[in-house]
């Protein structure tokens, strides 16, 4: 069975790339991983289209967990999920978790073959309600 994929969405392309580096070096390459961040002009920002592309790159039949930083990263990720085919939409979640730690924890959980719901729960365990 395929492992859940991970998408990292930050306003800063450097944070997105750095968080992805941490996942790769700490967890390994047994999970699909994609990251996106920044606007086309080189500034801070996030975009629905680039988030959709990142979801495609990280796609797994087991689903995809998205880790975001602030505000627009979350709302744009939710919009990107809404725009997916109905068949895929139910297999993508935006986690309510700190972006770096959440990505590493989610990927660690995913690397053991856990379900999307378990992966999300592990990431969200970092920030108790």
């Amino acid at each position, binding site marked *: 069975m395929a492992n859940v994929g991970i998408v990292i969405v930050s306003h800063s392309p450097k944070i997105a790339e750095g968080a992805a580096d941490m996942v790769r070096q700490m967890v390994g390459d047994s999970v699909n991983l994609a990251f996106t961040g920044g606007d086309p002009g080189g500034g801070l920002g996030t975009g629905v289209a680039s988030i959709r592309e990142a979801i495609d790159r990280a796609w797994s039949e087991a689903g995809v967990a998205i880790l975001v930083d602030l505000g627009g990263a979350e709302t744009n990720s939710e919009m990107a999920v809404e725009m997916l085919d109905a068949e895929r939409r139910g297999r993508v979640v935006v986690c309510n978790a700190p972006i770096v730690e959440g990505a*590493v*924890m989610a990927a660690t*959980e995913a690397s*053991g073959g*856990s379900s999307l719901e378990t992966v999300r729960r*592990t990431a969200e*365990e970092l920030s108790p309600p």
Partner: protein
Amino acid sequence: MKDQAMKHLTASEQVTDCAELINAVGLHARPSVKLTQLAKIFDCRVEIALSADGPWVDAKSPVKVMRVKAPRGAILHVRTSGEGARGAVDALMALVRGGFGEAMDEQADQSHG
């Protein structure tokens, strides 16, 4: 060595063992991930603790293992139960005794986490 002191097998197929953390950083970020990933390979219940009396933590939970934060020199206890309990303990002990495949020299390796 204290390493061998806790090894025993009970009727309920519970196995425990312990070993000192010998790598420079102890059970910090990367070793925690490795330990969790290894524990998840096994179907049996796998728990860790810093004392034989507990508290015991689910070794398959990345977040719980990350919160243990044991320094170099601490004794890590492993307890498993169920199918394949012995194999799981042996595998985890090998990881700990091998220093998680990381540097053993504290001075040369302050950057690890």
